[in-house]
């Protein structure tokens, strides 16, 4: 844990009575301070106006590449396509050996083995599980889905919450589901696959709900909170990510436990990515500015980052002809 954390934090145990029943959990979540919608949007917009140039830009682009979860989640994904994507994850720019690898490749659970064959342990493999993207299935099905992916070698599991239950106020059900999935992430040797919880913020209606969902998932023991599946519009936005970053910051202050954040969907340009990095730095501080604590769920973003990187290196604008179509 980074040194900035106070040593006498109470940890998750202090919240045991909060999560004892749906009533206490509901009282706690609804007792969280409300989000000032106008203020959050204005703050996100003002952070987006920062001008990041030259060496700072080069650093930001390099960092952003290492934070990308290179994602393909289509019904038409073939083994060949995910193998190509896995190779790209290892060496995003084949013409430049100094270009770093991305953080992870994110695929459906049944394709984990294909990716694993290519990347081995050099890049993480993330699998979406729990009846992604809708999350509409029985708990047994969701847990089996998760165990399958973990057994296939997934390093990270991206689960979706049951938005229907959450919006209906059945918080404890959502909580218990996350706890159960986390348990299903356990491997035979006792280690855990990293768990990311997807809220699908586009369906949560309000920023207050995003804040509540963040606390709910963090109390349930997730390692990461993630905005969206990428299948619903709007996906990741700056204000939503701001609310989530505030939640992980406050959570670490309260419990000493650090949680990662992953905006996903709709981040397509280097400019957007840099806006997110500025926000991470301003809201949570530099502790989160590593691929261990902040990720981008994206596919097209990587090509734009590579084009910008090439532009900085060569001094001329690059074009999409020089990067893979994926």
């Amino acid at each position, binding site marked *: 844990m980074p040194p900035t954390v106070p040593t006498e934090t109470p940890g998750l145990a202090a919240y045991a009575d909060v999560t004892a029943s749906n009533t206490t959990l509901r009282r706690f979540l609804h007792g969280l301070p409300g989000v000032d919608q106008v203020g959050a949007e204005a703050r996100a917009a003002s952070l987006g106006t920062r001008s990041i140039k030259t060496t700072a830009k080069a650093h930001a682009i390099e960092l952003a590449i290492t934070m990308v979860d290179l994602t393909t989640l289509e019904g038409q994904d073939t083994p060949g396509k995910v193998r190509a994507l896995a190779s790209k994850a290892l060496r995003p720019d084949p013409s430049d050996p100094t270009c770093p690898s991305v953080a992870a490749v994110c695929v459906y659970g049944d394709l984990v083995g294909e990716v694993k064959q290519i990347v081995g342990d050099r890049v993480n493999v993330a699998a979406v599980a729990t009846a992604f993207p809708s999350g509409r299935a029985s708990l047994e099905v969701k847990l089996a889905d998760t165990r399958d992916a973990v057994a296939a070698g997934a390093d990270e599991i991206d689960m979706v919450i049951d938005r229907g239950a959450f919006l209906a106020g059945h918080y404890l059900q959502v909580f218990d589901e996350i706890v159960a999935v986390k348990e299903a992430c356990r491997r035979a040797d006792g280690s855990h696959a990293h768990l990311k919880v997807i809220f699908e913020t586009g369906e949560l209606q309000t920023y207050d709900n995003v804040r509540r969902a963040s606390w709910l998932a963090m109390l349930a023991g997730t390692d990461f909170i993630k905005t969206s599946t990428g299948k619903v519009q709007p996906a990741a936005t700056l204000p939503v990510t701001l609310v989530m970053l505030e939640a992980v910051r406050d959570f670490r202050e309260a419990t000493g436990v650090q949680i990662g954040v992953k905006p996903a969907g709709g981040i397509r340009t280097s400019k957007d990515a840099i806006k997110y990095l500025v926000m991470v730095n301003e809201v949570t501080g530099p502790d989160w500015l590593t691929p261990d604590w902040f990720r981008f769920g994206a596919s097209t973003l990587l090509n734009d980052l590579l084009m910008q990187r090439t532009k900085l290196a060569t001094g001329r604008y690059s074009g999409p*002809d020089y990067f893979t179509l994926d």
Partner: protein
Amino acid sequence: MARVDVRKTYKLYIGGAFPRSESGHSFEVLDAKGRFLANAARATRKDARDAVAAARKAFPGWSGRTAYNRGQVVYRIAEVLETRRDQFVAELVRSEGTSAAKAGKYVDAAVDRLVWYAGWADKIAQVVGNQNPVAGPYFNLTSPEPTGVVAVVAPAGPLLGLVSVVAPIIVTGNTAVVVASQTHPLTAITLAEVMATSDLPGGVVNILTGPTAEIAPWLASHMDVNAIDLAGVTDAELATSLEVAAADNLKRVRRAPASEPDWLETPALAAMTDFLESKTVWHPIGV
């Protein structure tokens, strides 16, 4: 009370819209006698980048249209230009200091030039394409295909020169990013208003105004530009450096002319064929 002047803001033309320069800068445009005429947007490399992105985006749709349809659109530009004849005559008189009669002649020639190229749209393939005799059981066809995104450094001739360079590029299915003449940029933007109301899809022609020597190198070195026309480059040193930069991705280059051609003359076919590539298909027969 005296009526307040409504002065026109001359902006750029990118992707079918009229944005200000990304930098927010503008520069003074003077008339023939050196008096202030108007402020024009001073485009930067980022505007050039945006214009190339817009031209690239427009390329598949525009080149995918039938030649007949592209001809109709270019003819439409001629129609709209004709209805605004008086405005262009007045602008040319003001910016170039020529007589109204001479300006009128140039506007008429520009309209005629557009009509001429509109006619070529669905005929160029017959003239430069071919069915080739080959020694084998093959049906062998060559057809002219557009090169892609063409950067244009426009000649000083503010209307006829510009039209004579841009029309042959777009009528064959290319899209263009034009750096307007630095001394006469305003007519180019007024022409953009004609194009914006002529069924020409946004992004097919993009017009930047500003210092040629600052904008053109970014277009010449841009890896997503397929060809560059140096029609308006008068400085030999700049022309050489642009050609060198263009070599990076093997752009087609139309070299700077020794002196500005007489735009009133009937153009050569090369105006179109310089930015066409020949595609040859071998098709087996008798099987």
